[in-house]
């Protein structure tokens, strides 16, 4: 019966990755410290989930627990419904891991190492194709210790991709890349979701996070403090905030406008004196009143934007 066959697809609605209430304590004796206290995280197939947070927030520990090189002290971790700590080769074949500054043997050539990882898979992508896609062909036969940081990053990405993984963990994939290769790596990461893979990555580069993320999770002090789609996280209140950039206007004029009495809205001046955030702009009439205030000081902003705030602002708010 076809309906039976089709409903058997439903278990694949399980997210690629699911962490629930994950706890982890590291160190021994007096130096025992809780690194993760109850992390919840999911990664959906065909999407990029960006894990953000300051250094020491627990991002690397979370990733290690996700790919089964570390074991949580409490909570559950499921990769395609299974425990990665006890994972067999068939589950590991579906997961690709890119390590931050490491995981590569310095004495081997890039080609030898990536081809070796390919041999551990049944149907690897030909290493030659990967090197070409990642612009590594000219340095593939060089020893890994003689490659630049950006080249090594791409070799590590090639090793993570060669088994056609359904779930990818990328630790700072664009760190240290030059401006020519960064878009290339962003494109390659995006291609993975287009073929249906789930991607979980960490980054310090918020521009890259905003360009790649479908979902964002912010980790601080071992907890997920914000979680949602990029749009959800960067939407402010009821959309009543307008950020204004006055460009090269005189900061004294901007300050004079900011000090005017404003009936319905609040004005917060930026530190540089030529930007401001206006809160409470909840109608076209309120917007018109704000614009009238600009006109009375002969201020013509370079741009203003009420759509969303940047991730940077969300992170700042969280770390406060």
């Amino acid at each position, binding site marked *: 019966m076809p*309906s039976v066959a*089709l*409903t058997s*697809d*439903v278990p*694949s*609605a*399980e*997210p690629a990755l699911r962490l629930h209430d994950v706890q982890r304590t590291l160190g021994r004796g007096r130096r025992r410290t809780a690194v993760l206290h109850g992390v919840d995280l999911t990664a*959906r*197939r*065909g*999407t990029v989930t960006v894990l953000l947070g300051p250094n020491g927030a627990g991002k690397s520990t979370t990733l290690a627990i996700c*790919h*089964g*090189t570390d074991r949580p002290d409490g909570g559950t971790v499921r990769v395609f419904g299974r425990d990665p700590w006890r994972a*067999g*080769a*068939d589950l*590991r*074949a*579906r*997961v690709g*891991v890119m*390590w931050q500054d*490491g*995981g*590569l*043997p*310095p*004495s*081997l050539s890039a080609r*030898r190492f990536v081809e*070796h*990882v390919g*041999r*551990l*898979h*049944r*149907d690897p992508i030909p290493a030659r194709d990967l090197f070409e896609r990642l612009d590594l062909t000219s340095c593939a036969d060089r020893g890994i210790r003689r490659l630049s940081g950006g080249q090594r990053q791409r070799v590590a990405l090639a*090793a993570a991709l060669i*088994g*056609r*993984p*359904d779930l990818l963990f990328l630790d700072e994939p664009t760190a240290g890349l030059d401006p020519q290769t960064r878009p290339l790596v962003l494109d390659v990461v995006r291609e993975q*979701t*287009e*073929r*249906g893979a789930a991607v979980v990555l960490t980054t310090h580069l918020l521009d890259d996070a905003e360009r790649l993320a479908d979902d964002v999770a912010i980790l601080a002090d071992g907890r997920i403090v914000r979680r949602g789609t990029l749009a959800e996280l960067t939407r402010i209140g009821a959309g009543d905030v307008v950020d204004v950039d006055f460009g090269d206007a005189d900061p004294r004029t901007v300050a004079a406008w900011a000090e005017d009495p404003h009936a319905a809205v609040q004005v917060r001046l930026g530190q540089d004196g030529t930007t401001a955030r206006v809160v409470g702009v909840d109608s076209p009439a309120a917007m018109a009143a704000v614009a009238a205030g600009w006109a009375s000081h002969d201020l013509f902003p370079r741009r203003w934007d009420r759509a969303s705030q940047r991730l940077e602002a969300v992170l700042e708010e969280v770390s406060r």
Partner: protein
Amino acid sequence: MSAPARDRLRHDDGPVAFSSTAAPASLPARILAQARLEAGTALRNGEQLLVTLVLPLLALLGVHVTGLLDTPGRSGVDVAAPGVLALAVMSSAFTSTAIATGFERRYDVLAALATTPLGTAGLVLGKALAVLAQLAVQVVVIGGVALALGWSPALSGILPGLVTVGTGAVAFTALALLLAGTARPEATLAAANLLWVLFGALGGTVFPPRWDWIGLLPSGALGEGLRTAFIDGTWDLGALAVLLVWSAAGVLLCLKLFRWRP
């Protein structure tokens, strides 16, 4: 499929139909790939070749030229050859393995390979197979040179000799992984070289032990076991038992103490 189920799929699953093609190579293929990589690297690396082949051969020639182990009625090479084989086992199974693994651990190569289909078990089995391949090369080269120098091993000792080589290799590989998986790579490098020299010179390997207790060291047991096999042509069950105890202790401690990442 019902509409709610389809919506659920779309919601949780993203827009793309999903069918996985990712699969591991077979277990033997994975282990063989790892062993080939490791043995190939070791046999191409000059420093490792120095320890695994050149220095043992120099020891053999030195003993032969100086006549240090000659006794009336017996050529010194009959005593030296089994001892130099024991030295060779220690160099590949212990020193070489410990140093390579220590640096792989420092560069997170061990952890990275553990997340591939190879896994931790495949990694250990691949290393063991690589040690066996190196041992085969060592036995052929060192045995060949010894024969050319006039070594006449007892033929009935070949089976006990090979079993002793294998057991010694297991014990020293386990000890190498224990060292590499617990100490810093610099400390591993220093200890692996120092212990090899001490075991080789004083541990009952090249020279027969001066005191009985040295036979309880893995080096002494390996040296004595091989001399008993190739000189007397018989099994040294005591030495084998000592090597088995060291193997078991090494494996158990590894399981408990080995850390994949520094």
